[in-house]
């Protein structure tokens, strides 16, 4: 079973310039939440962005990684000041 840290490393190694924040949100090592920021996502649809991340793991999705919930963005979204 991968750890959140391993998943983070694999995403960042496979997607150039990506930073990933990964959380194991059930503590059982198989349900993860990842926020991935990468310039290569710019101009791509959400589908394409998510596919890029899922492709890193291939057949593990739904297997060893039961769930990988994704949020992808091309740049850090800064909260606008009111």
């Amino acid at each position, binding site marked *: 079973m991968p750890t959140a840290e391993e998943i983070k490393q694999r995403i960042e190694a496979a997607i150039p310039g990506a930073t990933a924040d990964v959380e194991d949100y059930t503590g059982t090592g198989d349900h993860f939440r990842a926020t991935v920021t990468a310039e290569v996502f710019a101009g791509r649809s*959400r*589908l394409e962005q*998510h*596919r890029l991340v*899922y492709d890193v793991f291939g057949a593990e*999705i*739904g297997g060893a990684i039961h*769930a*990988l*919930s*994704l*949020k992808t963005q091309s740049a850090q979204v800064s909260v606008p000041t009111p």
Partner: protein
Amino acid sequence: MPDPTSPTPAGSQSNPIRDAIAEAIAQNEVILFMKGTPEAPACGFSARTVAALQALDARFAAVDILPDPRIRQELSALSNWPTIPQLFVGGELVGGCDIVIEMYQSGELAQVLGIEAAVGPAAPLVDPGEPLTPPLTQIENRLG
């Protein structure tokens, strides 16, 4: 002698499940492949996706992928998407739970569904209530 007016299949093996999935996607404007049913979703991701559609009062067909593991296999091969649920609109994959929820919150889901939503932030999703959906498409029953 084969009937010259009917096309022969490309390969010698037919794939009735893949064909039934493709047909269901083509015949239903909005179709959700999910775990369980809209009345009784079997997983949280499917439940949330159903909740988003129901919050918009959308009509949609639903297919439970749990009865036969081949459904999920063939669906993923067709859509090039590894997870369940999968929402298709107008014959095209819109996305899974994460994408559908993001689009619901931004108002894009209502737009894609051709639903006039109220201006302003989308209502927070609550637990699905009474289902408004048409009956399930029973893919496994179509195999004869």
